[in-house]
Each structure stands twice: as C-alpha cells, then as structure tokens.
C-alpha cells in the first residue's frame, strides 16, 4: 500500500512551489467561537511535504480526494487530534464532538502532496450562558515542538461579550491558506488561549448582528475590574458546570457548522516593502494627530495657573514691554522649557545606545512610572499643604511682582520690577525666560516619559517640539495682548477656589494614578510582577 502511494506521489510530481513554512512544518489553527449554549472550535492542521509523507506511510493512505483509504483515516485523525486538545470552561473540560471534517492534498514542492485536515468540533455548554463572567481555557498539545505557524483566535457570537481574551479576534493567515512571509510577520507560536466571556443583555445582543471582536488582552484599561469580578465569583458559591455530550448532528447554534479548506495562496507573496510603507503611512497619520494634540497641550499648559509662565505677561505689563519684547520673552521661555525636557530625553536616548534595549525599556518604563508618580505626589502635597493658594496666584497675576512665589530663582528679579520706565534689556529677558522655563513642567514630562515608556523616544522629542510650539504661541499671544490691552489680564483671572485649589489637586491625583499604572505595567514586563491572565 505504502509503495503504491509512493509511486503515485512520484508520478504526479510536477513543479509547484514548496510549502512556505518549510518542508517539515506542521501548522495549527484554532478558531474558538463562543456562542450562548455551545462553543465551536474550528481546528485546522496543515502538514508540509515531509509530515504528509509520514502520515501516508504510517496510515497507508492514498493522497487523493475521495479515495476510500481516507474514510477510516479521517475518523481516526479526528479522534487523535481531539485527544491533544483541551477546552475548559470554568475548569470543566468540554466534550468535543466533530461536526464536520474535510481533508485536502494541495501540491507542494515538486508537486509532492501536502495535507490539510480541518475539523469543526463543538462542545455544548450546560444551559444558557449567564451574565456572570466565565473563564475559558484552551490548549493545543498536538505535535509539540514541531516548527510551524501556530495561531489561535477567539470570537464571540451575538449575545456574548468578551471582557478579556489572550488571543486576537482576527487571523493573520486566512485559516492557514495565506501565510504572510514578510519579516515582521514571523509565524505565531500560540498554543494556549484564555478568554473571559459573559452573556450580554438581550437588547445588546439583538442589536449586534456581527460577532463582537474580543478586546485585546494587553490593553490595560479594563483589567482590574474584570479580575475583581472574577475573583468575587470564585469566592461566592461555585456554579456547577456539567459538560453534556452534544447530540449527534444537532442544529448548529453558532457559525455555519461546516468546515472548508483552501490550498495556500502563495502566488502573490506579500512584499515586505509595501508592508513597511503601509505601516509608515499609518504612522505619519498618527504622528500628525499626536503633534496636533501636543500643540494643544502646550497651549493649555501656557494657561496653567501657578506655574510662573504668566509671569511673562505680567512682566511685560509692568515694564513697558514692546511687541518685540513679548515675542522674545515668549520664545526664550519656550526654548528654555524645551531644552530642559530635551536634556532629560537626551540622557535617556544616550543610555539606550549602550544598554540592550529590551533590558532597558522595562526599567525606563519603571523609572518613568516612579518619576511621574512622585511628581504627582509632590504636586498634590504642595497644593494640598498650600492653605491659601489663591493668594499667591492673585499675586502672580495682579501684583506681577513676585512671580510664582515658590521659585527662588525668580526672587532676584522682583526687585527691579517696581522701577517704572526702565528699559527692558535682552539680558534680563534671557535670565527671566530661562529661569522661568527651564524647570521641566509635569505636563511636558508626562508627554516625554509616556513616549519613553512606549519606546518612542524620537517621537517623544518631536512631541515636545510641538508642545513648545503651542506653548510659545499662547505665551506670545498673551504677551502681545498684555502689551496692547493690559486690562485683559483682569478678565483672565483664575482665582476662584475651584480653579486654584480643587482643579490642581484633581489634576495631580490624575498624574499619580497615571504614574502608578505605568509603574505596574513596567514591573510586569520586567517580569517582577506576574502578568495576570
């Protein structure tokens, strides 16, 4: 029998390209589809030339569609593959029944056969899914250690929502029929998945015809709440899960209940260049948005109370500043401010030249997180402890003499400012602008450190430029307004209790939270904290 198949193979051998993943690869694909009363598992195995030959040898099959030798083989294969799979819901293994199977033998290198086996398994859930979260565990233990593309995706049917999923909702290989071959898409090696799902409100379910995409696991947003509710569930009375063997050929509740296989479409291999261009263009769009946001941030930052920048305006009001002075002072403050933040970024960039980046980044992230947290704490405490904050701010804007009061570097200047009629010298402008701007402010630091923790130091520096542009624009605008309409200042006072006390407090609390989040994430990626789920 084996000789016959070998002869058949060699006779029909033509000239077709080799398997894209190597002659001995075995690729896996699992699509987990969670429905209200059942979970469907679309499982596909793609064997390249050598493993196909081994299958042919060991099982004495003829690699031809419809061949009678395939019937028994396919039944055994479905069983063997199932034994390697584990699908659990809340710790209870689901019994999987094969609903549909298919086998094809697309020609590979030299026309030698390759083999694809697809099985649609179905595991029934005991009863309808309730609104409490369920934990789904999946593990593919077939062909351990063998090279190949190993991909798992999970999708929710209508009426079901995923709160977390360790795997994406869309595949990259079109069910093992179109392997991306560029450098940035090396074969995934996913053999395990965890999904937390729950039933959604009926109205929501009805509204959604399309299956919902799972949220990406690595997004830190909703993590804590889900884990918390899951933990609550664990401590409450455990719900009993009974795995019920599915009825033979029952009506498919989810999907179309059929499995279809396709040969590899590698005729048009994706050029890595176009892939890169695509990501680059996307990058430009995002960067433009980011730049616009940074300009806005800079503008807002110029308006912040209690930060000594409105001092620029105040100074100009009191010192017969001209339009030219306003421009200069605005630019100097901005320049100094940018330089201060750059200095920090430069040190970071320099360090990343000499330390292996993958070792550095978790620690940079950690440093950023800790710095942001302590900055937030510092600001919070200072604002909290400053009993009559409004007084100093009133000072800032109305009496224009003491600057931000907290900054000793400004004290020296305060003496000169009462002298009316004195010409504004460039040196003075420089001293004032630099001392007022050099201290990196929280907002700019947050932008930079966030960029660092996202491993985009270059972008961070660019964002700081944009930030400064916004800052300069507003500072200059204020300066000009001051010069020509001094009275504008009085309309711009922000000395109510809300703006001088509660808003700064809230904002520093925000900074603290943000810093803590960054720190935790960095600790996880450095492997110090266990990553949950």
């Amino acid at each position: 029998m084996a000789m016959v198949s070998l002869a058949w193979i060699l006779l029909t051998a033509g000239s077709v390209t080799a398997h894209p993943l190597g002659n001995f690869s075995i690729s896996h694909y699992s699509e987990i589809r969670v429905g209200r009363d059942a979970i469907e598992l679309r499982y596909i195995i793609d064997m390249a030339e050598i493993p196909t030959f081994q299958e042919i040898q060991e099982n004495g099959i003829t690699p031809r569609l419809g061949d009678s030798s395939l019937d028994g083989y396919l039944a055994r294969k479905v069983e063997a593959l199932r034994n390697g799979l584990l699908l659990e819901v809340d710790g209870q293994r689901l019994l999987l029944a094969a609903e549909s199977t298919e086998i094809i033998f697309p020609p590979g290198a030299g026309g030698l056969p390759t083999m694809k086996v697809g099985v649609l398994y179905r595991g029934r859930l005991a009863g309808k899914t309730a609104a409490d979260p369920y934990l789904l565990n999946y593990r593919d233990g077939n062909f351990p250690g063998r090279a190949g593309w190993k991909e798992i995706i999970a999708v929710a049917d209508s009426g079901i929502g995923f709160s977390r999923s360790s795997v994406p909702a869309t595949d990259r290989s079109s069910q093992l029929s179109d392997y991306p071959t560029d450098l940035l898409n090396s074969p995934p090696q996913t053999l395990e998945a965890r999904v937390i799902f729950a039933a959604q409100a009926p109205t929501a379910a009805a509204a959604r015809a399309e299956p919902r995409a799972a949220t990406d696991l690595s997004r830190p947003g909703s993590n804590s709440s889900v884990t918390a509710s899951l933990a609550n569930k664990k401590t409450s009375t455990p719900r009993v899960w009974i795995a019920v063997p599915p009825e033979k050929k029952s009506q498919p509740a989810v999907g179309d209940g059929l499995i279809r296989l396709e040969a590899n479409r590698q005729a048009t291999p994706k050029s890595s260049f176009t892939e890169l261009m695509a990501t680059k263009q996307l990058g430009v769009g995002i960067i433009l948005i980011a730049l616009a946001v940074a300009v806005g941030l800079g503008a807002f930052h110029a308006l912040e109370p209690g930060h000594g920048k409105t001092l620029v305006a105040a100074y100009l009001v009191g010192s017969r500043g001209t339009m030219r002075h306003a421009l200069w002072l605005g630019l100097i403050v901005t320049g100094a401010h940018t330089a201060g933040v750059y200095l920090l970024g430069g040190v970071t960039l320099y360090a990343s030249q000499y330390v292996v980046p993958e070792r550095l980044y978790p620690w940079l992230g950690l440093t950023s997180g800790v710095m942001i947290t302590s900055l937030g704490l510092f600001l919070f405490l200072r604002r909290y402890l400053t009993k009559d904050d409004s007084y100093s701010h009133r000072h800032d804007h109305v009496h224009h003499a003491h600057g931000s009061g907290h900054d000793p570097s400004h004290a020296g200047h305060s003496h000169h400012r009462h002298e009316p009629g004195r010409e504004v010298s460039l040196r003075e402008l420089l001293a004032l602008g630099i001392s007022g701007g050099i201290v990196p402010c929280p907002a700019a630091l947050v932008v930079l450190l966030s960029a660092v923790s996202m491993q985009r130091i270059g972008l961070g520096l660019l964002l700081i430029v944009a930030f400064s542009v916004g800052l300069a624009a507003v500072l200059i605008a204020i300066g000009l307004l001051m010069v020509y309409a001094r009275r504008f200042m009085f309309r711009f006072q922000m000395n109510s209790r809300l703006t001088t006390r509660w808003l700064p407090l809230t904002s520093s609390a925000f900074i603290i939270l943000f810093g803590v989040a960054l720190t935790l994430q960095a600790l996880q990626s450095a492997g110090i904290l266990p990553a949950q789920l």
Partner: protein
Amino acid sequence: MKIRPHIAAMILSIALVFAYGPSRLPAQGMTTDTQIAYYQQLLRRDPRNAKAYYGLGDALIRKARETGDPNYFNRAEEALKKSLDLRAGNPGAMRHLAYVFYSRHEFAPAAAQARKAIDMNAADGNSYGILGDALLEIGEYDEAKEAYQKMMRLDDSLYSRSRLAGLKSLHGDPAGAIADLEQALAAGEATRHPAESVAWTQWQLGCEHFASGKLKEAEAHYLRSLQSYPNYYRALAGLAQVRGAQKRYEEAIDLYQKALAVLPMPEYAAALGDIYGKTGRPERARQQYELVEYIGYLNTLNKVLYNRELAYFYADHDVKAQEGLELARQELNYRRDIYAYDVVAWNLHKNGKLEEAREAIDKALRLGTKDAKLFFHAGMIYHALGAKDKAKEYLARALGTNPYFHPIFADMAAQILKQLETALGPAVAENQRQGG
C-alpha cells in the same frame, strides 16, 4: 470664562498614550518567540531602526537553532541585510550574516563574510569563532585552529571553549575535549547563556562520552541536556543512540520517534530504521528508509547543498551505490573536511574502487581523530583490499574506541575481526590484540 487647563492637559496626554495602544513592552521571560515579536513591534513603529533589525536577526538565528527550521535562517538573513542597509557599519550584523551562511553550509561565503566582520572589529571574538567554524568545514584545520585561539584570547566563554573542544576531539584528544566542554558548560551556566546553548554543550558532552564508549556518562549528559531544553531533538536522538547501545530497543524507538516528531532529520530516520531492522521489523525499517530518500529528494528539489547523510545512507545500506558516490564526490566541491573524505571513501569502497577508497580514508584519518566509524570504514576497506593486518588493526581500534558505535556495524566489525584472528591462529591474534 472657566478654563480647566490642567485637567484638560492631563486628559489629553492620557488619551495620547492610549491612542498609541498600550505600551507593548517586551513580555516577561523574553523567550525567543517574545523576543522576535518584540523586535517586530519596534520595527512596525520605526521601519528604519537598524538596531531592531539586528536584534530580530539575532533572535531568528536562535529560533533556527532551537527548531532546526532553516526557514528562520533565511528570515534572519533578510533582517540582517536590512540592518546593514540602514547602517552599514555594524560588525555584529556582519558576523551574524556569516553565521547564517555557515548554517546553510555555504562555507566559503561564510569565511569571507566572517573576515569582513573581523576587518570591521578585530576585537570581536565571535567573528573569529565563525571564521574558524567555516574553515573547519572547508578542511583548513590549521587556519581554523589559529582563528579559535584568537577567539579564545579575546573572549573566554562557552562559545570559544566548546569550539576548542571540537578541535581537540578532531585531533584525537577526547579527554581534552571533554575537559574543555565541562569548562564551557560552567561558563555558560554562570553567565546564563540561552538555554539552547547550554543544552547544546551538554549534548556535545554526551556525544564525546558516547564516542569513547562511556554509555553511563553519555546518558547522564543527554538527560541533562533535555532538562535544560525540553524536547531538544539533538539530545532525544543522542539518548536514543545510548538506549540502542544498551539494547533497550523499545525505548530507543520511542526516543527516535520523538526526535523525528520535532525535526525529521534523515539520519534519525535511518537510525530508527536500523533499530527496526535489528528487532525483526523489516517493514517498519523500510518505511524509515523510504523517508530518508524522500527527504533527500526534497533537498534536491530545494537545491539544498546538504546530502552527506544521504550518501552515507546509501553506502551503509548497500543501495544506489553509484548515486551515493556521486553525492559524496559533490560534497568535496565545497567541503573538504575529514568526513567529506570519509563519505567518499566509504562510497568508493561500496563501488569496488578500493585503491581510491584507501587514499580517501587515509585523508580522513590524517588528524588522528578517534572515531569508531572512521576506523571501521578503514578496517573494511583494508579488509576488502586483503591487507589483513591493517584490517584487523583498524577493526580492533573501532571496537576499542567505542564498542557500541553502531547497532549493526559494531557486530559486523567484531565478527570480521574474529574471522581474521582465527585465520591467523589464536596465538598470533592474541599477540596482535595486545600490540594494537
């Protein structure tokens, strides 16, 4: 006019952070897969990051070593070339590229590439290491030794020690090789080298012990290798060989099957076939032999320059003698190490070209390597030539070096040796054995 600039700024910056998606820092543990994913992520953000391409190339090479999948070497080459396109002056990328060529058995280009890397950075010991590796395969043993010694001076590590060990082994100093490997292993474990590198060294130690017939020690090292890197295909096959020697055939079969399940290497299939044959399962043996030929056929289709195993297989199993000789002679075009001469000699012998075979086996033995397989081939060639003393001497040395060297040929060597001794008379034989 109530503005809340501070809060607005914070919300905007937070929004900015999340607009980018969460920070995808390298995942914990940094296995080879996560490392690959990490560099790909960096490159998706900045496709002009030469260092990330270099890192990706490095990770892909490690993946290729772990899985034995040559596809990863091709990807690594692509990544390294991109890195060099973006920034020409990276000696590390040059050296890695040399390693990729070497791994694909393109030895001359590998040596040339390694020399380029050395020109760029003469202080990088690893470049000398790869140069030495390539020279070793080409058969330039003295130059290879020189390169390794330079490497050793620059960088005393697992990689330099294990290379020196290989050289000592080739020059017939297994004890020295084992000592070097032990040191290499200690260095590797102390500096936390990648698991595969440690497992490789342990596997190599197993091989050295097995080559000297020390089954217990070989077994221990293979088991340790499997602990360092579970399911490591080299160690599975090594342990299978030990089990075969211990006549624990069912375990040997199981282990060979496991190794083949990870990586279908033709030599594993051939060895499994031999065990099946020995235990009276000719049908199963034939299946494995067919698999060996099938892999060889695929290699020809894919224009892989790697058919030494097939040439050995043909000669070992007395099939396709002419094709075997052709394959073996092709090897000499790009590889002139002692085993290239051995496979030619063994195939010449099977083709009845005994004089040429004797010349070739002498070249294979020129370093004084203590390898039972080489001695056995020499013994068989001299036996066919009718040079009884030489035949006896080599067969005895084969069995003296490693009485378990092959499940079939070890028995064959003992049998022929016995015939030769009885033909010469017991007294002379006894004398010869003591002398040899």
